[in-house]
């Protein structure tokens, strides 16, 4: 099983940009979970990105794992502790872990960007997926294959963020409404063409040309909205 140090595990920790779409592996605070009492919990999204949304809207509930204090997982321990996703130094340098045995569904309206305290790097997401597969099936999947399978959805997620940050140049414009509007516009852009860009992306996720195209489209949209050229 793959091990990962905090420097490679997280994309952002503590201060997380609102422009990053909510994604598998994100950690949220203050979530009251049905059946887990009245205490707010830390949770990590374990749902696969494809099963979290219908179109650009979240499904009513999203699968999460409660996150609790845990000893730091080091060395060979990564091959054990198969029921958790270790989250070292998650809060104030303290170590936590997402517990797969307590996986449940959280109301998606609670999982908003203001409550998000960490996002995982791409590599961190693959490690989470590897541990989830192992926990549920006792099956080992290698990281490069997981990376290949996840590549198109990760491409979309990163590119959507780039789009939002290009169009909404000023951080004060990163409101929920504005970000949702840009999400809808970005996905409409992905669906354009015959074959659509989304289909092209599925065939080959290494589309450097589409990244350039997306950026140009975002710049055009910013200019249209009266932003800096």
């Amino acid at each position, binding site marked *: 099983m793959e091990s990962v140090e905090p420097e490679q595990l997280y994309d952002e920790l503590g201060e997380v940009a609102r422009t990053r779409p909510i994604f598998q592996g994100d950690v949220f605070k203050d979530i009251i979970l049905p059946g887990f009492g009245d205490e707010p919990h830390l949770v990590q999204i374990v749902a696969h990105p494809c099963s979290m949304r219908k179109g650009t809207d979240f499904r009513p509930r999203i699968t999460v794992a409660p996150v609790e204090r845990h000893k730091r997982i080091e060395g060979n321990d990564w091959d054990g502790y198969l029921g958790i996703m270790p989250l070292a130094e998650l809060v104030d340098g303290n170590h936590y872990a997402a517990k797969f045995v307590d996986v449940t569904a959280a109301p998606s309206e609670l999982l908003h960007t203001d409550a998000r305290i960490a996002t995982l790097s791409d590599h961190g997401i693959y490690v989470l997926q590897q541990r989830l597969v192992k926990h549920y099936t006792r099956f080992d999947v290698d990281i490069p294959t997981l990376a*290949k399978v996840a590549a198109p959805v990760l491409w979309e997620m990163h590119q959507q963020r780039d789009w939002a940050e290009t169009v909404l140049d000023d951080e004060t414009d990163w409101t929920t409404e504005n970000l949702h509007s840009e999400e809808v516009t970005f996905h409409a852009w992905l669906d354009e063409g015959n074959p659509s860009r989304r289909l092209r992306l599925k065939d080959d996720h290494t589309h450097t040309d589409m990244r*350039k195209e997306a950026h140009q489209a975002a710049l055009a949209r910013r200019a249209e909205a009266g932003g800096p050229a």
Partner: protein
Amino acid sequence: MTAAGTMRLFGTGTSAGEIQDYTAVPKAAQTHSLSIQADYLRTQSDLVSVEIESVHERAREMDLANRTLAKSRNDVPNLLDELAYQRGMAWTDIAEVADVSVSAVRKWRKGRDASPESRSRLAKFAALLEMLEQKGRIQDPANWMEMDLPLGAGYHIRPLDLYLNGQDVALLDIAEHRGRVEHVLDYIRPGWREIRSKFEVFEDTDGLRSMRMRSE
């Protein structure tokens, strides 16, 4: 060897007696002589080849260093613009090249300072892409960096992985088709053949990617 000895060995072919001598020439000795000559020439050729390789490698390193110096005159936002928007690289890959997190790269875009080391790493990568384009004749080097090398099913090694392991000159060998990719990898990454995935990625019934065990 004396002249007479030479005559005895190779003969002139002008008399029957000499022909008899000629048949007495030991063929093994002749082969041995040729073999020595071939060994010598081959060794000389190999030595020259190794020297040429070494000179070529030094020339490339100097070329890369010069290009890196030229690129590093650009500030970080300009380097990011070149890599992300002119080349179309992914932010995650840019972050890996610079050895920082993606969020750090995003902060640089917003004007935060990057360390001189990070700037230098970005400049070096931009310089290498330029070399791949000009010397390796790779049309879209950023795209090439992300693609799996042609090694057969189950092997997922990207040129970018080699770069991140410090094997930038080997990348030029691969780009310029100087030997088979497998041989270059044998040299720079022994044991790569043992890391082969048992899975294949396929398009599932819902149109999305899934994985399954490879049949062979």
